[in-house]
């Protein structure tokens, strides 16, 4: 009985829990509730994964109103793939939040943080499951508003400015998506994604449709921080409480990459969207520029969080690159990287969270000689860093392998050059920290360790989980690779 309502439970559960947190008004209790909800949510998404894999696409009519009149939740393989990523990151990151968040957010605001977190999760999950274009916009705004709140909640006053900047950019982006939805409604008279897809061939090659596509891509580009629309991202990641950056890096931008894929394949239809090659050539150009730009700026940063933020811009370029190849192999490579980058970046950010927990700073210069004091922690960073670079036996290598292979199969030699060159840049920026922490002996006691801190067991546990995942998915990538291939196959056949 309940199993048929899982799609809606996935979204409702965190939504109900959010106000409960406000009622609880207490940090620890809210944390317990939030963690519980996240793990239940994770369990729901694994059940959904099972259902979709065995029974195929699930269509759920919200409130019993059948589509196209009511809102439809539509779950296919891509949906459950994203659900697993978002829920997995959320649940495990929250475990780590227990130890680190009280240092960065004043205790009387803790419950508000958890409320915002749950709302954000609601929004992201909603974006993923919904099959209704306007509903998607609403969920995007739920996710965005709560993430502005999460960013601005920290003790560091700069986070306020970062949040405001993000709010302005994000609102413009969401409004662009709204315009696009409006134009689509104007030409098709429906908001159901599947329905739009069916009716679009009648209005093919109209200017309204092209305009809708352009507004959509720009809007989602802002939200997903695709170069050159990424300006909000470095500030938002580097000034917000570090666990928030971790969560955002692992989920938000990837969900918007999902939205991009969903609109291109399930709404506009692939042939309309690529528009004779112009569209994906443009995407490819921006992807390459983003990869090089992000990697280059990452090298120049001293703050680890900012470094990782710029690296994220580059990595988003990889995902976009995969999509822009306009082949099944390319799309699969992009999706594989969505998955792998989630575990890589979260592992890196979690190690930075732990570093900040111990040392109260994320400046590379000040962290010289860290490896002598926290050898395990720096090696965790090293392993995830190697994964980011794409060293064999780590998850990052799998992504690079498929990306390069897909570009070679499409005959784009230039892309291979871009990918390997940016890997070299990645070596430089990861090595900057590794060299400072392992091989520079600080003249004075630069690293002020908070020895009296209790060992953050949960934080270390979640970090360890992600580091192990980096190696595990480097050795046995059958799960994500096969799923990504199946998704790409489905999307292209549609």
């Amino acid at each position: 009985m309940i199993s048929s309502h899982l799609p809606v439970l996935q979204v409702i559960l965190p939504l109900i829990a959010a106000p409960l947190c406000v009622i609880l008004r207490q940090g620890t209790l809210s944390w317990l509730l939030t963690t519980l909800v996240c793990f239940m949510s994770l369990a729901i998404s694994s059940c959904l994964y099972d259902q979709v894999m065995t029974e195929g696409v699930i269509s759920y009519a919200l409130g019993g109103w059948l589509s196209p009149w009511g809102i439809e939740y539509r779950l296919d393989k891509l949906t459950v793939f994203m659900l697993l990523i978002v829920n997995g990151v959320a649940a495990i990151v929250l475990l780590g939040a227990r130890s680190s968040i009280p240092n960065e957010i004043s205790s009387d605001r803790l419950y508000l943080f958890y409320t915002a977190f749950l709302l954000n999760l609601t929004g992201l999950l909603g974006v993923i499951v919904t099959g209704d274009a306007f509903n998607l916009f609403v969920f995007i705004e739920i996710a965005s508003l709560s993430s502005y709140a999460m960013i601005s909640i920290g003790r560091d006053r700069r986070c306020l400015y970062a949040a405001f900047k993000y709010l302005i950019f994000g609102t413009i982006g969401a409004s662009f998506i709204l315009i696009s939805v409006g134009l689509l409604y104007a030409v098709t008279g429906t908001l159901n994604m599947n329905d739009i897809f069916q009716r679009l061939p009648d209005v093919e090659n109209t200017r309204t449709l092209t305009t809708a596509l352009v507004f959509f891509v720009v809007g989602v580009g802002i939200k997903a921080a695709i170069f050159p629309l990424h300006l909000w991202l470095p500030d938002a990641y580097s000034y917000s409480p570090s666990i928030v950056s971790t969560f955002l890096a692992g989920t938000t931008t990837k969900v918007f990459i999902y939205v991009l894929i969903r609109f291109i394949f399930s709404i506009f239809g692939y042939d309309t969207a690529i528009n004779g090659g112009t569209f994906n050539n443009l995407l490819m150009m921006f992807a390459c520029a983003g990869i090089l730009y992000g990697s280059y700026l990452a090298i120049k940063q001293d703050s680890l969080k900012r470094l990782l933020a710029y690296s994220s811009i580059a990595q988003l370029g990889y995902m976009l690159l995969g999509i822009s190849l306009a082949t099944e192999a390319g799309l699969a490579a992009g999706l594989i990287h969505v998955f792998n980058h989630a575990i890589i970046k979260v592992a890196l950010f979690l190690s930075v969270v732990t570093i900040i927990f111990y040392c109260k700073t994320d400046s590379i210069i000040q962290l010289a000689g860290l490896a002598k004091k926290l050898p395990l922690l720096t090696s965790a960073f090293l392993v995830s860093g190697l994964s980011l670079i794409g060293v064999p036996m780590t998850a990052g290598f799998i992504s690079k392998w498929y990306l390069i292979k897909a570009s070679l199969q499409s005959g784009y030699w230039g892309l291979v050059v871009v990918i390997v060159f940016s890997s070299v840049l990645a070596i430089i920026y990861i090595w900057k920290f590794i060299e400072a922490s392992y091989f520079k002996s600080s003249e004075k006691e630069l690293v002020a360790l908070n020895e009296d801190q209790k060992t953050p067991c949960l934080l270390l546990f979640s970090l360890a989980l992600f580091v192990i995942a980096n190696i595990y998915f480097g050795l046995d990538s059958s799960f994500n690779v096969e799923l990504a291939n199946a998704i790409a196959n489905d999307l292209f056949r549609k």
Partner: protein
Amino acid sequence: MDFLGTFNYWVVVILMMIGLYIVIAHQNLVKKLIGINIFQTSIFILFISMGKITGGTAPILNEVNTLYSSPLPHVLILTAIVVGISTTALGLAIVIRLYHAFGTVDDDEIQQEIE
């Protein structure tokens, strides 16, 4: 496609550009929020004017009125207005905290203080 037939779109575009211009050009954070609001309003008008049919009435089922406007855009825009108001509220709250933290609501000055 004469000008009058598409004049609602012209209004939308002009309003939208005014809004965007304010967001980009003004240093005052509150004015930026006002710009965002104008920008969003233009989108509301876009939706609502699309749903209007000349001579159409409210969609009430009876024998007299057979021609009626689609109610859906109105419903959507009600939701979008709620979203817009929440955004504005959150934006203003952040501006107030920015003012407390930095003593100014000027974009440039805050940026200078951060660097």
